[in-house]
């Protein structure tokens, strides 16, 4: 049993097998995403009654909270891939780590945009120097830095490894940044604006959240496989196996 798992993982390091696995898994993941998204949206927009404090604006949180979680979980996944890539020098994990960055950045962007839109009716302003919003903005810049660094290299393998180091540097720094920003906002709270306290969630408000969390996880994984496959095609475009794969599908 253990042996088969181990062999399976080793096989994923081989580009043609990895390509095939991405190709087979991706439609299923997209289908799962579509189903959970439809259920989640149905609950979020139709079933759940308005909140007594926030009225309907809390419905924004059904996309804001899962996106925020996925933005952070995405960084964690990317870091794990980066460790594997640096320690064992497996090319497919390098590619996956690099493909994870733009997806994580997209979720961070959703989180920031919806957070500031939610803030307008709740706080009275589009942007508040709230600890979580500020941390998310810095996280976005870390993601953009990783993408920019990778893009700046002509030798993609070298670029991926250097960017993997940056990913790990970011991993060490994110908790420190978050702590420092929280410290900073509590110190300056007197000068800021008063925030609406978060109401505790009623049980009836949870199902859409769970479905949306499942949907964002599936979206991340599906997009990750698709992007990794493309990156592999791009890097191996002059290799025989890619030409065979594409030639066969003409």
């Amino acid at each position, binding site marked *: 049993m253990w042996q088969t798992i181990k062999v399976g993982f080793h096989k994923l390091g081989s580009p043609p097998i990895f390509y095939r696995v991405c190709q087979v898994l991706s439609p299923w993941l997209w289908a799962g995403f579509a189903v959970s998204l439809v259920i989640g949206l149905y609950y979020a927009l139709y079933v759940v009654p308005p909140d007594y404090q926030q009225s309907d604006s809390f419905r924004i949180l059904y996309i804001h909270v899962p996106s925020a979680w996925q933005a952070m979980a995405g960084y964690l996944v990317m870091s794990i891939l980066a460790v594997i890539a*640096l320690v064992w020098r497996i090319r497919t994990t390098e590619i996956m780590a690099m493909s994870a960055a733009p997806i994580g950045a997209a979720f961070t962007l959703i989180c920031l945009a919806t957070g500031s839109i939610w803030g307008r009716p709740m706080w009275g302003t589009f942007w508040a120097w709230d600890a979580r919003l500020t941390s998310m903005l*810095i*996280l976005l*810049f*870390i993601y*953009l*830095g990783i993408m*920019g*660094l990778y893009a*700046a*290299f*002509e*030798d993609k393998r*070298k*670029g991926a*490894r*250097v960017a993997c*180091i*940056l990913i*790990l*540097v*970011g991993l*060490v*720094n994110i908790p*420190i*940044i978050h*702590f*420092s*920003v929280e*410290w*900073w906002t509590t*110190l300056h709270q007197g000068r800021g604006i008063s925030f609406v306290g978060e109401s505790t969630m009623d049980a009836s408000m949870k199902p859409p959240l769970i479905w949306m969390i499942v949907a964002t996880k599936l979206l991340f994984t599906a997009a990750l496989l698709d992007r990794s496959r493309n990156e592999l095609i791009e890097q191996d475009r002059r290799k025989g196996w890619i030409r065979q794969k594409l030639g066969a599908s003409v």
Partner: protein
Amino acid sequence: MFKSLLALLRRDLRLAIRHGGESLMPLLFLFAVLILVPLGVGPGPNLLSAIAPGMVWVAALLASLLALEGLFRPDLEDGTLEQWWTAPAPVGLLVTTRLFSHWLITGLPVILFAPLAAQMLYLPDHALPVLMLTLVIGTPILSLIGGLASALTLGTKRGSVLLSILIFPLVVPVLIFATGAVSAVADGLSPQAHLGLLTSLLILAVVLAPLATTAALKLNVE
């Protein structure tokens, strides 16, 4: 081992003195920023003294970015960087030495001229020692983070724009704790907690940054 470290330090400093004008650029840049601020927000002492800690620190941060482009690149181009791996001293220590000389050239002048900058922005006199202390603890962190970023971008053609984007998220905690300490003193509070946290950041940076920098240099030399 110490001989090779000393030789590197001596060489770096001698080069910096020979290119005297270039080494003074960060300091001039610092004062350019500090002169532009009152011109931009008005010369009112109340406003200026309120933003003084932040402005001095932001200016110091921007000044530290200036000399980063030439931190490792000339050595990569003339091949001396590769020889670091055959030197009698561990590469991590050579990296630390190089960053120390970078700090002597860019960080130290900023610290020495900080009293003047503080006067120009009407920082309360009793807050000046703490400002100096935060600069003494904080500017080495800036050099360490800057060195890391410049090692990461070494293999790219146009590193300088990328450099500032990579550095900015990493220095956020330094800026928060350093200016927090100065503001606390200016408001009559104790800066101890801020200074303690800033010092722990320095320790963390001294331990971890050379490791990551060495790894990045190695990838770029290969």
